């Protein structure tokens, strides 16, 4: 039973991180209608920014997180302005290739600055809490709490504020949104900023129990893709539920099936589900 609960905690941790990354991806999908492959590189950039702030500037963990959110938000907005905006009428293939270009640039850039070594990010939350046989590293609890908090915050923002509603409106119908006077450029920039900040924060939350390295975003982003395909492209609740599903599948798969193959589980799940249901689990209409 304790081992089972332990896996539940692991699943929540992974699921929280995946949900945050997938949320950004799905919001951007709502605007672009094309998956942003560079999102994983944004995640990586967030971890390196925080690493720099904590390790070189000597500031604490929370400043690192703030720095990551701001810097990655900026990178994200700049890439929207310089790359995705000029390509808005191009075929989907061009979007994908351009986002791969950004991804390769950011990865090579990080490697040029910090080298190919793995780095460890310090966290002030090293203690391990125990609750009746259940051991819980504080950092994992922080991830679960922070992810939950951010997801609720984002939901409130999208549902209760006018600015949030413009994002939803634009994701639903671009022309319609423009007709009622929504400034498409502003909304697109705002969405990219939020998506980038979420990726940055997710990276800073997860990095202390993982490591910081240039290709750290690749697996995470691929899993985020799996999540938004499963949850329905552009769907916010889908990204959250999908993130949790993949998180739990990995935690339990790693424990009950094999740690070696735990990274395959998410992909195998996607292949399996899309083989049976090409339209995804929750999406309406065919892809």
């Amino acid at each position, binding site marked *: 039973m304790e081992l089972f609960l332990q896996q539940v905690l692991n699943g929540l941790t992974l699921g929280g991180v995946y949900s945050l990354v997938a949320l950004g991806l799905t919001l951007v999908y709502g605007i672009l209608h094309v998956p942003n492959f560079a999102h994983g590189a944004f995640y990586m950039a967030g971890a390196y920014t925080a690493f720099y702030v904590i390790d070189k500037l000597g500031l604490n963990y929370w400043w690192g997180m703030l720095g990551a959110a701001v810097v990655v938000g900026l990178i994200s907005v700049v890439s929207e302005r310089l790359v995705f905006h000029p*390509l808005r*009428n191009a*075929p*989907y293939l061009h979007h994908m290739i351009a986002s791969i270009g950004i991804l390769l640039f950011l990865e090579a850039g990080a490697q040029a600055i910090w080298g190919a070594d793995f780095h460890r990010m310090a966290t002030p939350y090293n203690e391990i809490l125990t609750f009746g046989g259940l051991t819980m590293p504080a950092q994992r609890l922080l991830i679960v709490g922070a992810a939950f908090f951010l997801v609720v915050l984002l939901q409130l923002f999208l549902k209760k504020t006018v600015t949030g509603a413009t994002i939803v409106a634009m994701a639903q119908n671009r022309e319609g949104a423009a007709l009622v006077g929504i400034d498409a450029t502003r909304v697109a920039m705002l969405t990219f900023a939020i998506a980038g900040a979420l990726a940055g924060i997710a990276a800073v939350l997860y990095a202390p129990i993982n490591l910081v390295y240039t290709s750290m975003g690749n697996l995470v982003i691929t899993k985020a893709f799996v999540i938004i*395909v499963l949850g329905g492209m552009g769907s916010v609740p889908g990204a959250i539920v999908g993130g949790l599903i993949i998180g739990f599948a990995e935690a339990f798969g790693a424990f009950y099936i094999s740690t070696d193959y735990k990274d395959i589980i998410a992909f195998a799940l996607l292949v399996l589900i899309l083989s049976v249901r090409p339209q995804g689990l929750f999406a309406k209409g065919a892809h």
Partner: protein
Amino acid sequence: MKLMNPVTGWLLLLALAIAFPFMAGNDYHLTVMSTAYIYAIATIGLNLITGYTGQFNLAHSGFMAVGAYTVGILTVDYGVSFWLAFGLSGFVAAFLGFFVGIVSLRLKTHFFSIFTLCVGYIMYLVIEKWESLTHGTVGIMGIPAPESIGPLDFSEARTQYYLVLFFLVASLWIMHRIVHSLLGRTFMAIRNGDDLAQALGINLMRNKLLAFMLSVFFSGLAGGLYAGYVRFLGPGIAGVEHTFDMTMYMLIGGIGTLLGPLLGAISIPWLTQYLQVLQEFRFVVFGPVLVLLVIFLPYGIVGTYLNRQRRKAAMRAPAAPAPAATPSAPAAAPKQGATHA
């Protein structure tokens, strides 16, 4: 103003390629060129499914690894001769491609790409983890060089170069035959709009599957050559970054043209050779180049040149009917974008 006719141009290129070993300063140059040719063969394959049929397959390097490991495993662990294993490499890749294709090709546009991205990851992880078959992260060492045929001794750099060149020329010729046949037109019709293609009576699934299998056949073949040439294999060759490399070659040269991917696959490795400092950080330069290309020069060098030629020809003969004889450029491709503007 035509520089020269295409046949002369291709023959000139071939003559240059044959003369290259006599001009090259040392064996290292031969190695760079041979590796470039091997990746050119794989890129030509990727171009068939992506440039001509419009489906962006991100598992392409995974299929190259399948071809390479077919040769590696059969020759090292089972003592099969290189030629037999090599002959199988393309077919094993195409066989696997059949199963991947029937599932993945039901998906359209970026869903297909995401699906194949996942397939590529699965291939990579399986190669890395299935140690009893693939030797895992250690890799396969000591793959024998191709056995000599008569007086041709393939342990020599120069003969190996000609071997690779032979397959590159054969691949280009086959690809030329494909894209200029009815089959090639069918693929392009699917690229330019699959609803329209279907309305014309084209069986989408069967043709896409055929294009996909042909495409990964070339990839597997390139992998087989790679195994015999480099004679060491690690799971790294299945990595998606190799697919990204090939995408870059294809795009810089000109997607959906015959010459473009070849031009890209040969010139970029040389460019990185001369920018040695950049070797590891080449994407600091090539990443933005890729972005600038899709924004300003989406048809690459060759595609842009061909389009200009065509526009000039059209201006010279305004009364002539639409140029039906020039189906190879992806001129109609931007139309796809209108739906998600």
